[in-house]
Structures are given as C-alpha cells and as structure tokens.
C-alpha cells in the first residue's frame, strides 16, 4: 500500500471525535479552518518513527485546555491546581489520538513507534511542517472553543 492511499482525513477525524467523546463527554463538530490569532494556546504533540514517520499536533486555547482538563479529571475549573495538570491532560489527548493513528499505520503495513507527548505553549507562534507525503488539518468546535488538529506522515527513513 502506498502512503498516499492512507485515509488520514477519516482516521484523524474519527480518533479525535472518539477521544473527546469518551474521555471528555464533548461532542465536537467540524468547522472551517481558522487560526488562533494572538490567543494564548497549548499544543500537544506526538511523533511517529519507523517505516512511516509523522507527527500529530493538537492546538487548543488556554481556556479550552482548562475546560478539557476539568472534564477529563471530573473537577471544576477552579480546582485545577497548576499548568502541569493542564499540560499532562493535553499531552495525554495527543497520545491517544497519535496512538490511534499509529495503530492504523501499523495495520496498513507501516510499523512505527510512538513518542511520548511534548507540549508547546505561548501565543503568536506557528509550527511549520514540510515535506510530508500526506497531511491533514482539521478544525473542530465545541461550544465557543476550537481545537485544531494537524497530522503529517511520510515514508520513514
């Protein structure tokens, strides 16, 4: 199978919606791509390396990240103790979405390994990825929040 035939758009949408639904009781709806402007945001990232390599980034605003954390841990917003808690939750979300993608790639004949998650936070920054065989960016909405998911894959070295 050629990586260009890998149905990344379907897999990445399915994984994201399932993770948000199961872990957070949040039903996401897809919306047109938008950027965060100068809103402070958190990006959870995982990488894939092997016969296929790639990366998955999940961008959410700080306020959505707090809402996600509260839902994931079954607490109120004011019970969140530190940024570490929020970062850990966003990292875990990217791990689950990346883990699903990794499984799909392995099942399609592209064995690869998944990295542990990393977190980037701040505002007015961009993450540029080039030279990928297949990529997909999708924007989801939950109430007045958005989550931007980026996935890039290519043949491994």
């Amino acid at each position, binding site marked *: 199978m050629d990586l260009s035939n890998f149905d990344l758009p379907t897999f990445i949408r399915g994984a994201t919606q*399932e*993770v948000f639904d*199961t*872990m*957070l*009781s*949040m*039903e996401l709806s897809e919306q047109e791509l938008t950027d965060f402007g100068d809103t402070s945001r958190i990006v959870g990232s995982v990488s894939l390396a092997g016969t296929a390599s790639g990366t998955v980034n999940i961008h959410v605003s700080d306020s959505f990240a707090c809402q996600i954390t*509260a*839902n*994931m*841990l*079954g*607490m*109120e917003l004011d019970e969140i103790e530190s940024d*570490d*808690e929020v970062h*850990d*939750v966003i*990292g*875990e979300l990217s*791990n*689950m979405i*990346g*883990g*699903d993608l*990794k*499984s*799909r*790639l*392995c*099942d399609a004949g592209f*064995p690869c390994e*998944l990295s*542990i998650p990393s977190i980037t936070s701040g505002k007015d920054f961009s993450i540029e990825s080039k030279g990928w065989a297949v990529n997909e960016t999708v924007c989801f909405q939950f109430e007045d929040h958005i989550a931007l998911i980026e996935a890039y894959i290519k043949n491994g070295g």
Partner: protein
Amino acid sequence: MGLKILTVDDSKTIRMIVKKAFRPYDCQIIEGENGVEGLSLAAKEKPDLIILDITMPVMNGAEMLAKMKEEPELKDIPVIMLTAEAGKDNVMKIVQMGVKDYMVKPFKGEQLIDRVTKIMPLAEKKGDSPKEGESGSKYFNLDGDIQMLAVPAKILRPTIVEVETQLKPKLKEMTGGGIKKMILDLSKTKETNVSLIKLIVTVLDNCQISGVKVLTVASAALGKELKDFQETGNIPIHFSIDDAKAAF
C-alpha cells in the same frame, strides 16, 4: 482488608482517572511514574493487581512486565495493560506478554472496573456505600419503595462522573433490597446539553441491565427539548413526581 492496586503511568491524568474509578471500592492505590518505579513498588508492596501503561519514559511497560516475569515473587501478579494503540500487532504483542487483560485508550473508569471485576472481586468501601444526604450520594433519596434520583439545574461532566460512580453500587443495593423502581427527576434541570443526554442514557441503560424500571420526570419545556434528541426522543416524560408514581 482491601485490594492493593499499583497503577504505573507517566501521565498523572491517567493515574487520577484510575484512582477515581476505584474510589467507591475498598482498594489502596499505589502510584508509579515509570517502569523502574513500578518494579520497585511491585517488589516492596506486592500488589494484588497492576494497571500498567505501555509507553513511558525511563522504562516502558513492556520492559517492566518482562522483568516482572523473571522474578518468582512478581511473575504471578495479574497485570492489565493500558495502551493508546489498538493495532493488531500491538494487541498480539500485549497478549503474548502474558497479561490478564488490556485496555485501549480512550476508556472510561467504569470500563476499567468492569475488566478488573472479571479478574478479581471488588468490595465496596465499608461505610462508603451511598447513604442519603452524604456527599457523592446527594442525588439519591429513597421514597417508600421508589428510589429517587434528582439531578441539579445544570449538568456538567463532574455531575455525570459523580452519578456514574454511585449508580452501580446504588442499583446493586436497590435490587438486593427488592427495590425495583426509580424516578429520574429532572424537574430542576433547566438546560439541555450533551452531558444531560449522556446522563439520561447512562441511567436508563444501567437500570435496564439491573432490571429496575425507571420513569423520567421533567418540565414540559425540557421534555419538549428531549424529544428532539435521537437518544431521548422516545422516552416517556412525566411532568410531576406524583404522575410518575401513579404510572408505576
């Protein structure tokens, strides 16, 4: 004496979800952040069960399990693996490692409890079973032979978690005591949201499994909104507690 359960995961989030899942049960939860810590804790504490993540820094779950299998004192401790990867090869690999079971993330706390109870019995915490007026069971109230479940004006995710945590033990207690009727009282609830729909579905599903008949009470406005959802569109709505009681 309760069970000793070791959860080994680099994610505090997952460890917290595991801890919350076991909160209603008589268990002591011990936490490790990676395979090295996990091995050391397993040797020291001799847990009854280990819930082990695969992908971790320092030493991953597969390495920790392999080392456990080399230790006569640790090799028979049942292990449930947690993995974010549901791929065939990964699942095969996990099964071959000699684990009792595995769970693919994302998962809910109650799914984990279901898996654990297939391996070993879990006892409810003594003195922690729902009593009227106590925190965590504040939504439940027994009215004659009818169990009332009254939920607040706004349903948020924490409400669902709280109700879900208490629901199964409560249903067990009800059926054990011959109580087979429940009223889901939504009369205070003002806002229809996804959490509310999920809560209703959870309550109805669990009651059906337990053989408990449940009737729903809601305001006319809320009842009308619930009719618009596929999940709740066919649920008969009663507009007062008395109506629901009479319908039993």
